C-alpha cells in the first residue's frame, strides 16, 4: 500500500477493497467462526426444545451468571477468571423417565457431549433437588426426609445401582438442596460415557408411624413445577488429552 501510495482494502492482509455490505458479511462470518472455535464447537448447537424459562432463571441465579431484566434479557455478571485457561460452568437439566417399577423414583438422565482431543477435569459438581416442606401437623417431631442418590447402571432393573450418598434433610420449609457428586462425575467423564443416570429416593420419616414412609417430598417426575426441575451444576476445565499430546508429538 505504501509503495503504490494508495490505500488498499486491507493493508496487512492484502484483500482488495470491498463494497460495504460484502465486507460486513465477511466480517460477521469471521466473527461467527472465531466464537465457535473459542467455544470448541464445530457448528452452532441446534436447539429445538429450550428449557422452560422458570428453570432457566433458577439455574442462572445458581450460576451467579447474572440477573434477568424486566424485559426478560439477561444482564451477565462479569466474573473474570484469574487463570488464563478457560473454565466452564455447566448447568445440565435432567431428562426425566418414569421408572416402570412401582414406588421407585423417576430416573434422572444427564447428557454430556465430550469434545475429542480434550479430557475434562471436574473441579466441582453437585446435583440440585427441590424438596417441598412437609404438610404434616407441626405438633410432631421435626419432619425430616432421608434422600438417597444412586448411580444407576444400564437397563431397567433397580438391582445394579450403586448408592452414592445419603442425606437427611430438614423439611421445615421448601428449598433447594445440593448433593455433591464431583468424584462420580470425574469417573464418568474419564470413562468417556455420554449419559449419566441417577436415581433419587426421598422418604419422609419421623411423621407417620415407625419408619413409615408417608410422602415423597423431592420434586421429581412429571408432576413437578418446571421451575423446580432438578439440575446439575458442574465446574470443569479442559485439559489437553495426554494421549492427544502424544499424537501431536
Amino acid at each position, binding site marked *: 500500500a505504501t509503495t503504490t501510495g494508495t490505500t488498499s482494502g486491507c493493508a496487512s492482509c492484502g484483500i482488495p477493497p470491498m463494497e460495504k455490505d460484502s465486507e460486513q458479511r465477511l466480517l460477521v462470518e469471521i466473527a461467527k467462526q472465531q466464537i465457535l472455535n473459542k467455544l470448541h464447537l464445530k457448528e452452532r448447537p441446534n436447539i429445538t426444545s429450550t428449557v422452560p424459562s422458570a428453570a432457566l432463571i433458577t439455574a442462572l441465579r445458581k450460576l451467579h451468571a447474572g440477573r434477568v431484566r424486566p424485559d426478560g434479557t439477561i444482564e*451477565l455478571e462479569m466474573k473474570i477468571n484469574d487463570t488464563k485457561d478457560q473454565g466452564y*460452568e455447566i*448447568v*445440565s*437439566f435432567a431428562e426425566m423417565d418414569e421408572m416402570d417399577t412401582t414406588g421407585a423414583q423417576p430416573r434422572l438422565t444427564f447428557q454430556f457431549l465430550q469434545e475429542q482431543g480434550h479430557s475434562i477435569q471436574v473441579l466441582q459438581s453437585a446435583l440440585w433437588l427441590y424438596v417441598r416442606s412437609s404438610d404434616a401437623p407441626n405438633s410432631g417431631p421435626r419432619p425430616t426426609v432421608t434422600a438417597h442418590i444412586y448411580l444407576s447402571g444400564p437397563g431397567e432393573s433397580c438391582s445394579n445401582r450403586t448408592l452414592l450418598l445419603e442425606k437427611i434433610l430438614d423439611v421445615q420449609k421448601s428449598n433447594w438442596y445440593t448433593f455433591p457428586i464431583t468424584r462420580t462425575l470425574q469417573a464418568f467423564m474419564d470413562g468417556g460415557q455420554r449419559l449419566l443416570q441417577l436415581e433419587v429416593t426421598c422418604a419422609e420419616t419421623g411423621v407417620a408411624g415407625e419408619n413409615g414412609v408417608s410422602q415423597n417430598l423431592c420434586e421429581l417426575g412429571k408432576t413437578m413445577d418446571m421451575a423446580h426441575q432438578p439440575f446439575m451444576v458442574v465446574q470443569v476445565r479442559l485439559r489437553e488429552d495426554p494421549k492427544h499430546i502424544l499424537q501431536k508429538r
Partner: protein
Amino acid sequence: SLQCGDDVTVCCKKDFYVKFKDIQWQDWIIAPEGYHMNYCMGQCPQALAGSPGIASSFHATVFSQLKANGINTAVSSCCVPIQRRPLSMVYFNSQHSIVKTDVPDMIVESCGCT
C-alpha cells in the same frame, strides 16, 4: 489508541458490533446480546512505529534504538491489538445444558504499532 473514522490512514481501532439476533444466534446464546468484534486497521508509518507507550515491548525498544541510530531496517511495523478483554458468555450447548464461560482475549480494547 485512535478510534477509526470513515477515512482510515493511521493505525486505529475499528468498532464493529454484531447483535446475535441479527445473525439468528439468539436462540442458543442466552447472554450477552451481541459481540464487539472490534479490529485494528491502518498504516504504521516510520514515525509511529514502535513508539513507546503505543505498543511498548522489547521489540519496540530495539526498533526505536535502530531508528534513533539512523539504521534503516527492512522491518515493517504493523497495526495490532495491544489490549484485549474476555467475552463472558452463557449459551445452550445442547438440548438440556447451559454453559457459562469467559472466553479470554476476545474483545479488542486498543490498537497500536509494533
